[in-house]
């Protein structure tokens, strides 16, 4: 499992700062939104890494960095051992092909004026060497079939499909270039529960069939638990805790993870009032001006003066068998479903 050749994707101290500018003509930089601020992650072949965290913590920015839709401020994205920043020409195109993305909103991420066939076949136009021209129509129909859509519907438009079906179209497009890695940014968040399950089942069966690796971003913690082998919890641009799904869900050691899990309402009225909700004070601070030391300290109920000027590193600790970025990390049992 830990064989280095299994590693398909890795980031090293990945950073993305968006400059905040003032003035219209002569823009001057007055600060930066530290959207992603030093992320290390590893993804192995056939594995799903779930990423959770509150709105604005940097999940989508991380996803865009992984698929080269954003350029890192510093740090590295390494696909199959190759540093994306150092590649060019043919080898860059090959590496980019290998990592594709599925987006959240099936209503806006598809061009309404293109047929489904054109949408799914678009990647072939960008990478003409992937499939010879003559084979493309068939390739598109095979993709439709693969994601459980009727291959005869190639000439329909997105509005003729339901939300769940549109998400399948997005998945088919991501699969067109036969990538090894798919980054899913909230792929089911816009869907109803009954439809959500269909898309998750599809993603799981495709993973087994094709040996895919997934980065799966979502804010629904039970969906992430269902699909993930490992989970990383993000807060203000940093990973604060990571580990196998059981470690994160059964034995969380970071106060933020514990609070997050405790806040998820449990679909069982018998447990009402028996959960010990850890209520966080206030809102997430601005990523343009994160707190010193531990970024979670302004909302943390365990914060000590020490936390204000010592940044906790993401590491295994005496009371945390898996990496946790808290000086006082320790397991706490949280009632969950």
């Amino acid at each position, binding site marked *: 499992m830990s064989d280095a050749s299994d590693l398909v994707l890795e980031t090293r101290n990945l950073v993305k700062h968006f400059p905040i500018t003032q003035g219209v003509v002569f823009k001057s930089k007055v600060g930066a939104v530290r959207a992603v601020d030093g992320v290390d992650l590893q993804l192995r072949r056939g594995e799903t890494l779930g990423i959770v965290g509150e709105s604005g913590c940097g999940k989508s920015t991380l996803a865009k960095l992984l698929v080269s839709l954003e350029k890192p401020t510093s740090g590295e994205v390494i696909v199959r051992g190759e540093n994306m920043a150092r590649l060019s020409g043919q080898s860059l195109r090959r590496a980019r092909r290998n990592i594709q993305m599925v987006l959240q909103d099936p209503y806006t991420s598809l061009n309404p004026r293109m047929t489904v066939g054109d949408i799914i076949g678009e990647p072939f136009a960008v990478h003409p060497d992937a499939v010879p021209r003559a084979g493309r129509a068939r390739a598109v129909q095979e993709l439709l079939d693969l994601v459980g859509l009727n291959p005869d519907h190639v000439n329909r438009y997105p509005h003729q499909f339901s939300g769940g079906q549109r998400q399948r179209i997005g998945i088919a497009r991501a699969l067109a270039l036969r990538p090894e890695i798919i980054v899913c940014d909230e792929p089911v968040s816009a869907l109803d529960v*009954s439809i959500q399950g269909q898309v998750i*089942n599809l993603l799981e*069966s495709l993973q087994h069939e094709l040996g895919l690796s997934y980065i799966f971003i979502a804010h629904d913690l039970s969906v992430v638990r269902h699909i993930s082998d490992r989970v990383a919890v993000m807060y203000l641009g940093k990973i604060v805790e990571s580990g196998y799904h059981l470690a994160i869900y059964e034995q969380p050691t970071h106060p933020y993870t514990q*609070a*997050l899990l405790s806040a*998820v*309402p449990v*679909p069982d009225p018998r447990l009402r009032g028996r959960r010990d*909700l850890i*209520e966080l004070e206030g809102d997430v601070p601005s990523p343009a001006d994160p707190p010193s030391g531990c970024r979670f300290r302004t909302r943390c109920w365990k914060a000590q003066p020490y936390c204000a000027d010592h940044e906790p590193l993401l590491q295994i600790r005496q009371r945390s068998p898996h990496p946790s970025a808290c000086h006082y990390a320790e397991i706490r049992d949280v009632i969950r479903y």
Partner: protein
Amino acid sequence: MTGVTDIRAQIDALPGLDPRAPLLHVEDLHVEFRTRDGVAKAVNGASFHLSAGETLAILGESGCGKSVTAQAVMGILDTPPAHITNGTVRYRGVDLLGLSEQERRKVRANRIAMIFQDALSALNPVYTVGFQLGELFRKHRGLSRKDAKRRAVESLDQVRIPAAGQRINDYPHQFSGGMRQRVMIAMALALDPEVLIADEPTTALDVTVQAQIMRLLAELQRQRTMGLILITHDMGVVADVADRVSVMYAGKVVEEAPVYDIYGRPAHPYTQALLASIPRLDLKGRPLNVIRGLPPALTDIPSGCAFHPRCGYAREICRQEQPPAYRIAPHRESRCHFIREVLGV
């Protein structure tokens, strides 16, 4: 100037008002949208009731008619394209659908209030929240500018907005999502309504903020013994706060039951299937349960039981005949021809 007692007295004098009548009683409500694409039957005979101090959850998937129902109760539907073709909405015995717009407006602000998913678009962006709150007290309670301001600060305080005295001078966009939702709650509760309708109040918020808001709502409701209708598709939230649940499908309430029965022993195949589709721990490593197919297009609702194309229990009669609401127990109804089978009795 209309004083506080005036408006209250005017409402109390509405024809048919009976303080002992149920707080809110909706019966056989039908709403359709007449558009170029045809007639969309958004609500097809929705019925439910609400008592003081009670929380009723209206649960259902996207497009099943939850918001349209709430808007019909509030009297804020755009007509046209919406048309209420049948039904009654009674507040303490008064049929609201028969009132003039002017009478309706009084009931709306003073007795029945509503909060929405998207607080930013529900608040006026060009006025400070203090001004917007103050206006309510001046218009409906006849308070002076100074007293209205004091009440505005108290209102923000009550929804636990820190430094309320200063924040009344801020505009809606200057509040975070969670704080804005609190502002909207403060506005809805300003005039002490007896009924609060909350339409997906936390759907756009993070779970940690959702937990804060739900806790606040529950507390305010308890203090005021207010009736709360919580519209949501989140089965976790429902289990956490509801006393009773009405499950909607294709514009109808298909099952109504106390919350423990809904989760412990659902009596409708749709409720059962919804609960089964939650990704539970013991399903890890296995496919999730799904409901096959899609909810129907409202321009083309299936004959008989609207759920029949997706239902595992369906038989021929389901295609032919609409199931009536069977009473299973006091406060328990289910619209299914095969309740015994579903309940396993």
